[in-house]
């Protein structure tokens, strides 16, 4: 089937879920306001009408309870997709995630699997303050036993969600609110894409070079991919060709694509909407440094939230989040040695 229809990321996610539910009766969805409401960020819109409340289950506001129930159901052969409305809410239910979902396969010596997707909304930029604006990529990626996915656009989101549902391990599927294409929140142009109607799966652990360049490598993910592409566009006008890598999955991490690119460009800028210290940006730089520090022509750089809680004030929030200008400045400094 050929079609050039363009879907917002939210619709791409709900379509992937619906397609898996049609073929696999063990897939069901559970979470707060994912049914009649359609999911606050639209990731489950339309599912209740098609599948009914037996398979699309609104839950009480009891994250520990229903994520724990998801773990039990998954161990018992189901494939639950459980929505944690905002990733920031992990504070009330992390035990279910990192002590149970992530460890029961190991602690059972492989006797049980936990094929479960925890779908959650990340990111800021819309003045919602620091209990509703974090990405926490590094928090989940740090803990063994979970796979961690963070798509930047509708095409990838659909294919990665299909893979997540079919995966026999627990998967954190982290979608950025600002990419969902909601009527009440602006999205960058590149987030809504052509999305094939047929089912397709994108393997985990394969980063995508979304723009090729010879002068510097920008490694990033999720919302920041769009800012990085804008920066690369601006830099091209100055004669600097930046390569942009969209990680797509954090665990597993496609280190080879990063190393290959940096070997070519000799310069590395890592951009993440998560906190700066002890996280993804440091991990990527360490990967390159451990592999071959001599491949770097200048010191690696990173842009991330500078270790402060994300503030409410628009001016303050915009200051702490990386953007196209700060990314371009960083690349420029890296290339020119400033």
């Amino acid at each position: 089937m050929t079609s050039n229809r363009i879907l917002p990321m939210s619709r791409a996610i709900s379509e992937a879920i619906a397609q898996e539910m049609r073929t696999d009766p063990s897939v069901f969805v559970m979470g707060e306001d994912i049914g009649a409401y359609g999911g606050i960020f639209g990731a489950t819109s339309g599912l209740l009408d098609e599948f009914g409340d037996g398979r699309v289950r609104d839950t009480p506001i009891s994250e520990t309870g229903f994520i724990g129930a998801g773990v039990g159901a998954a161990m018992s052969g189901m494939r639950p997709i459980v929505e944690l409305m905002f990733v920031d809410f992990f504070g009330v239910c992390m035990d279910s995630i990192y002590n149970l979902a992530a460890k029961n396969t190991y602690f059972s010596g492989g006797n049980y699997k936990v094929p479960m997707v925890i779908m959650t909304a990340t990111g800021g930029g819309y003045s919602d303050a620091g209990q509703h604006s974090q990405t926490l990529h590094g928090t989940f990626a740090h803990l063994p036993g979970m796979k961690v996915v963070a798509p930047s656009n509708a095409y990838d989101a659909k294919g990665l969600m299909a893979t997540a549902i079919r995966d026999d391990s627990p998967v954190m599927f982290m979608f950025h609110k600002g990419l969902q294409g909601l009527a009440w929140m602006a999205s960058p142009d590149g987030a809504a894409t052509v999305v094939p109607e047929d089912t397709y799966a994108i393997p985990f652990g394969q980063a995508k070079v979304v723009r090729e360049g010879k002068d510097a490598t920008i490694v990033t993910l999720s919302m920041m991919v769009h800012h990085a592409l804008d920066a690369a566009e601006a830099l091209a006008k100055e004669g600097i060709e930046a390569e942009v890598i969209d990680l797509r999955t954090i665990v597993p991490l496609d280190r080879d694509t990063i190393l290959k690119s940096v070997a070519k460009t000799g310069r590395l800028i890592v951009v993440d909407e998560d906190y700066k210290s002890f996280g993804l940006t440091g991990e990527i730089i360490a990967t390159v440094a451990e592999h071959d520090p001599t491949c770097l022509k200048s010191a690696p750089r990173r842009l991330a939230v500078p270790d402060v809680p994300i503030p409410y004030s628009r001016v303050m929030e915009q200051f702490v989040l990386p953007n196209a200008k700060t990314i371009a400045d960083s690349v420029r400094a890296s290339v020119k040695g400033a």
Partner: protein
Amino acid sequence: MATRKTQSKTNVSADELKQFYRDMLLIRRFEEKAGQLYGMGLIGGFCHLYIGQEAVVVGLEAAAEEGDKRITSYRDHGHMLACGMNPDGVMAELTGREGGYSKGKGGSMHMFSKEKHFYGGHGIVGAQVPLGAGLAFADKYKDNGRVTFTYFGDGAANQGQVYETFNMAALWKLPVIFVIENNQYAMGTSQQRSTSSAEIYMRGEAFGIPGEAVDGMDVLAVKAAGEKAVAHCRSGEGPYILEVKTYRYRGHSMSDPAKYRTREEVQKMREEKDAIEHVRDLLLSGKHASEDDLKAIDKEIKGIVNNAADFAKTSPEPALEELWTDIYADA
């Protein structure tokens, strides 16, 4: 303690009574052996023994059918033996060996058996309770008529997630039996010092979940209560709470200083309420078994436990390559 129910309320054959004696004795002797191996340094971490509480799992397993599920906390050795898991594999997991149920990666608190529908073995107080509801959710979804025994202690009964789970289980009419093993101490804090109301089984009332207290030192009473709970769940009426009043003779774990209760209190329970002695008395006084019959059972159990200990001592240490398996389902 609740008043012991009379045996006349239950219908148990002499053979079944003997089986109860045997199953409870296996748990006790196994745990005594585990305590010895711990003392010898062969078992690490915190080892939580089930001695004193044997009638709880043995009585409830007698009420279960093939395919029913069970999940519990870290005081889990008794549950595993009662549902038929191999003592060799359990003991070898305690010693962290290759032949253990989790290949040495889980230890005392983390063992599982798909074959026996045993879902662990969990180390965080109360955390297994939502999982139990999830197991029951899956059964209801599949409409397979199974029930899940979700065990937790009187200490865990004060965890918030238990009430999140009660609400969901009642709302969705899940076939789950919440078995509160009230051994009267949350680690070292007595129920009087930790729990506002003595009647934990009534805590489901606000959610519309029926509850019942039962004498957990009386295996016949436990079985009878279990059958009632199972019938309730299987008929589609939703969850059921059983508060089984029991007592653990040993410390919370092997590192317990035993300062929070008197030796006399423990001694009194052992002498007056011991569940195994109770069944032994019934067998002998009812002339269902002779002293020699019981000695033969004792000998058989001793053999099983010694074999398990030998296996656990001689099973190889896990290869370090095993560190990197089972982190994910596909690797």
